[in-house]
């Protein structure tokens, strides 16, 4: 089954950076109504002082408690791994590319340069009912960012080169 690659199964079994941690700015709880799965997710942002990035937020911590299928748990794990410590703007860029790949119905194979381990979810695009699973942690993440006051408008732009 092309859906359950080793990377996904590994992340699902041993989710990275799991567990809800302190300190945090905002905690959100998101549910997938079709299956009842849930994720609680916290973000902790810090603002860069000085330099070209002056005032831009950085993701100091993202922690979560995910109750769900292998796809959603693995996706939360990859989210944390790919995003932790990075400027928020870059994580939004990752989201945009990931979203484009997931909703491409398989025509966009994804690019590891842009989305790192998240390319493992390329197979999900062929199963529309599972796209929601992979997106659940990301939707929670965007919501948490917005509530923490970050500008997430870039998330809805079309990704470059798409």
């Amino acid at each position, binding site marked *: 089954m092309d859906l359950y690659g080793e990377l996904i199964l590994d992340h699902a079994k041993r989710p990275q950076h799991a567990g809800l941690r302190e300190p945090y700015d905002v905690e959100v709880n998101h*549910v997938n*109504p*079709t299956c009842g799965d849930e994720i609680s997710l916290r973000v902790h942002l810090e603002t860069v002082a000085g330099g070209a990035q002056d005032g831009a937020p950085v993701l100091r911590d993202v922690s979560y408690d995910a109750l769900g299928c292998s796809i959603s748990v693995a996706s939360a794990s990859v989210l944390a791994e790919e995003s932790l410590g990075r400027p928020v703007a870059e994580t939004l860029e990752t989201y945009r590319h990931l979203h484009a790949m997931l909703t491409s119905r398989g025509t966009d194979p994804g690019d590891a340069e842009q989305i790192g381990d998240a390319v493992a979810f390329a197979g999900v695009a062929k*199963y*529309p*009912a*599972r796209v929601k699973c992979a997106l659940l942690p990301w939707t929670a993440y965007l919501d948490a960012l917005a509530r923490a006051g970050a500008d997430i408008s870039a998330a809805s732009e079309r990704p470059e080169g798409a």
Partner: protein
Amino acid sequence: MTTGQLAAQPLSRVEIGRIRADFPLLRRTVRGGRPLVYLDSGATSQKPRVVLDAEREFYERHNAAVHRGAHQLAEEATDAFEGARETVARFLGAGTGEVVFTKNGTEGLNLLAYAFSNAGAPGALDGADDSWARRLRLGTGDEVVVTEMEHHANLVPWQELCRRTGATLRWIGVDDDGELDVARLDEVVGERTRVVALTHVSNVLGTVNDLGPGSPVVAAARAVGALVVVDACQSAPHLDIRPLTAADSGVDALVFTGHKTLGPSGVGVLWARRGLLEAMPPFLTGGSMIEVVRMERSTYAPPPAKFEAGVPMAAQAVGLAAGLDYLTEVGLDRVHAHDQQLMRHTLDLLADRPWLRVLGPPDPQRRIGAVSFVADGVHPHDVGQVLDDSGVAVRTGHHCAWPLHRRLRVPASTRASFGIYTSLEEVDTLAEALDRVPGIFGLAG
């Protein structure tokens, strides 16, 4: 709107012939072998083969409960259903998130009416955007406005809403020509008006109510912040209704029904502004419209899912999409030009028969799709029976617009109504069949 569309060519004889060949039922004969002349499309349209094929293909290849289930068929069925929503959205010039599938036009209008009474239940508007939510609050002293030409489907739900909430029903009158009495609008629409619900096209008279830029009714409603609800059941099959959903149209919600628009029975469409749908409390509740369900309390999905409880009429939605595509492929400008040609021909032929009296505006350009008339001294049902005996199918009675008939001082009427497949020759046959009436009933014909 009307003038622009008139530039299009009416359908030619050959084109109509080609279209007719797509509608299997039109080959029927009735009453001892007479070819069917179907002039009752205002009641329900016939269906082109593509609609029937689309439904059947869905059942034979992709049938599954949409939005439920993790298997390939469920994916395919969901894609087909959501694809149908995209087609409807294109037909309306609207976003898919603004398109709700209902069982018919009547359900859509009831759904809107219940939104006002359900909004009054404790907590029903919690979290709703107040700019929309406050427009849904309705109580004693508030007013609901309809018109005297409404189909019962756009009258009785508002009467019952007033019964539930203590609001008062008011209405815009109709003049002797069957036109809305807009001169006295300010006596009807006022500060307490919360909603103005009116039809785009009268199902009896064919009158096209002005809802375009500068429409007096829409302007009056907007001036007092009342929601504008349009019943487009009779216009959707004949006119491009996209102007009504344009961002600045002033229309807040609109309803049409599948079975009059070349689609199957059992499916209708409600369109409303996204913000309104978000603020409106749910109507039918159950599966597929929820977010989280606990025994104590449930929360609801965003629209359109919020208004589509239960397994939906997926096959019918797919059929309707095929019907709408059929209409847009012919082109709604040409469909409208065709209707205008039929209208002129019908009014001419009826005018030649002085024992008949046509209800509604004499100007064919003010009318769409339907002509109702009375023969003084012969009951409309008896007229209809003679036509039926000649193979001509029309509707008789009050056509679910009883107050309008009372206003026009006739108990009932006989109505001929058109579809995309109606030919000029069928109107000729109507006229010939009508000529039997004076003889049978001893009129001075």
